[in-house]
């Protein structure tokens, strides 16, 4: 017999009042350093997380995002720096006394306990009475839409259901901070989207300070109040999703978040000449000479033009928007997003002219030959 995924409409139960009424606490990381042999996982990481904020830590593998989360949780002791929660230094406080709830990437339900017992585990550790444990487990399972699975064992649940139970278990102890370590990465795409929206809904309802580690930029941008991009153990930028996308502070962030075209350009009189037009430069202006202009696919436009220098190579339909790959002279290929309804004639092989929107462009050094 297979366990069906929980339908969305049962997931709208209200959070327990005592959880809703707790104010979110500030979390501050000060100069966190962690070294594993010769690898520097955290390099003096500074980060302030406001009470009740949903902050996503985003970055490529090995950038230190999980190490930072484990340092907050108390599972990993930093070599240097401090972790402060609500102004209190908890760097030396053991994980079992930090009052945090964590959902792991791997399925972490205790296989010998049923769903209700898993959710109530933290309360049992705190010597809460049987009636209170049962009541709280029931409330939390209602919240995550699994009240009817209370008697099931973990191996009788789907992956998405297991992560929902893990979320309920983490919240059952009314933690000060909720830590999410890539909790969706083992799930299939549809469940992942559904569950991330559920997590955000619950977080907003509870107002709990939440740190969400992910390598999936779509996840980070869609649910977080702010996103911190890490690279080699350091923060490249912390900003709202829209700022991060629209105004990346560094070339790394620009290229890591979203799709970015790299077009040959020249610095002319403090501006940039790209695709034959002049645009102002966002950020630092290189001294001169050849550079690369970093341009989003939606900042480009395509017009069918029999005499145009470009030629459409592929067209990928994805609903309201289609993405065109356009080959330009000099071996340059760019990605361009166009409205699907208005671009029926833009088929592979069509000759086109590529235009650039009137907005500042970010410049990067040319790639080595």
């Amino acid at each position, binding site marked *: *017999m297979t366990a069906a995924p929980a339908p969305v409409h049962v997931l709208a139960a209200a959070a327990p009042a005592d959880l809703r009424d707790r104010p979110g606490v500030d979390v501050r990381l000060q100069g966190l350093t962690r070294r594993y042999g010769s690898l520097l996982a955290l390099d003096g990481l500074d980060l302030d997380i406001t009470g009740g904020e949903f902050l996503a830590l985003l970055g490529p593998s090995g950038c230190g995002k999980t190490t930072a989360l484990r340092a907050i949780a108390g*599972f990993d002791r930093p070599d240097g720096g401090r972790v402060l929660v609500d102004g209190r230094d908890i760097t030396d406080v053991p994980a079992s006394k930090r009052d945090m709830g*964590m959902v792991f990437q791997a399925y972490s339900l205790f296989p010998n306990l049923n769903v209700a017992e898993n959710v109530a*585990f933290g309360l049992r*550790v705190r010597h809460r009475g049987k009636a209170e444990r049962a009541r709280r487990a029931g409330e939390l399972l209602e919240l995550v839409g699994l009240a009817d699975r209370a008697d099931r*064992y973990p*191996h009788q649940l789907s992956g998405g259901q297991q992560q929902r139970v893990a979320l309920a278990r983490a919240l059952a102890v009314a933690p000060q901070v909720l830590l999410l370590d890539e909790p969706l990465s083992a799930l299939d795409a549809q469940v992942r989207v559904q569950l991330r929206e559920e997590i955000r809904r619950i977080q907003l309802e509870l107002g709990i300070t939440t740190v969400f580690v992910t390598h999936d930029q779509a996840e980070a941008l869609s649910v977080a109040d702010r996103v911190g991009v890490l690279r080699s153990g350091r923060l490249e930028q912390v900003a709202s999703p829209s700022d991060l996308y629209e105004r990346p502070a560094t070339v790394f962030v620009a290229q890591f978040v979203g799709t970015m075209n790299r077009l040959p350009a020249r610095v002319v009189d403090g501006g940039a000449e790209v695709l034959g037009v002049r645009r102002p430069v966002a950020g630092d202006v290189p001294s001169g000479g050849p550079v690369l202009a970093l341009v989003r696919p939606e900042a480009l436009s395509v017009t069918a033009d029999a005499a145009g220098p470009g030629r459409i190579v592929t067209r990928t339909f994805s609903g309201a928007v289609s993405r065109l790959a356009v080959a330009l002279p000099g071996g340059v290929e760019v990605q361009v997003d166009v409205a699907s309804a208005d671009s029926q004639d833009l088929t592979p092989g069509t000759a086109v002219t590529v235009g650039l929107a009137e907005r500042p462009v970010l410049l990067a050094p040319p790639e080595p030959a």
Partner: protein
Amino acid sequence: MLLVLGVYFIGPIVASVWFTVRRVGGGVTATYYSAIPGADGFADAFLRSLLLAVLTVVLVLLLMIPTVVLVELRLPRLRPTVEILTLLPLVLPPIALVVGVRSVLSWAPDYFYGTPLASAFYALQQPSLPWILVLVYGVLALPFAYRALDAGVRGVDLRTLTEAARGLGASWPRVLATVVVPVLRTSVLNAAFLTVALVMGEFTVANILGFTTFPTWIVQTGGEHPQLSVSVSILSLAITWALLLLISALDRRRPTEEAT
């Protein structure tokens, strides 16, 4: 091939059973089996071995479960060293081990006479409950117990489970008792079973150190009452099989329905 192997294993058992139930002059009898409970020295030896087995299981599990968890979570680099250490009892002949133990025990009168250490050495050698056998059997059981537990640890994501429990406020003793042991239940049962089987069948160490246990009693009785001795052996084999079936039954208690 399977038939040949079956005959090879079952043949001696069938012959032994026939030896114990055959009546002189024809027919079968259960005389020797019914005489077991009242046999001189049987109850003492059997209960002593059973107690030794229980104590050895407790000692081995108390020692090895934290060790295996520690190696898995904190000291994975030590795994090869621990594996080699736990293999030593297999490559070291029991006779060498017991001669060494006997030499050390003889230090009590030779070097420690009148000291608390000598009293402790004597206490270890009480014939009614020889604790020294628990210690030696604990060493002999290490290779089997470690491998059973290590296989269990490798089969689960122990790091995540223990961190989840720690994050929910559980102390390390509580994590071991409420998460690790239940998760490793099959491995713990296997380790316990192997240890019990070893203790209930160990002859060399007990005999050389001069203690009467179940196996030494069987050998002593065999000279005077061969049928009785063999019937006790058959019975102990049946008990061992019963234990094995019990472990399998305990392991099958969990529901097997899987979600997709």
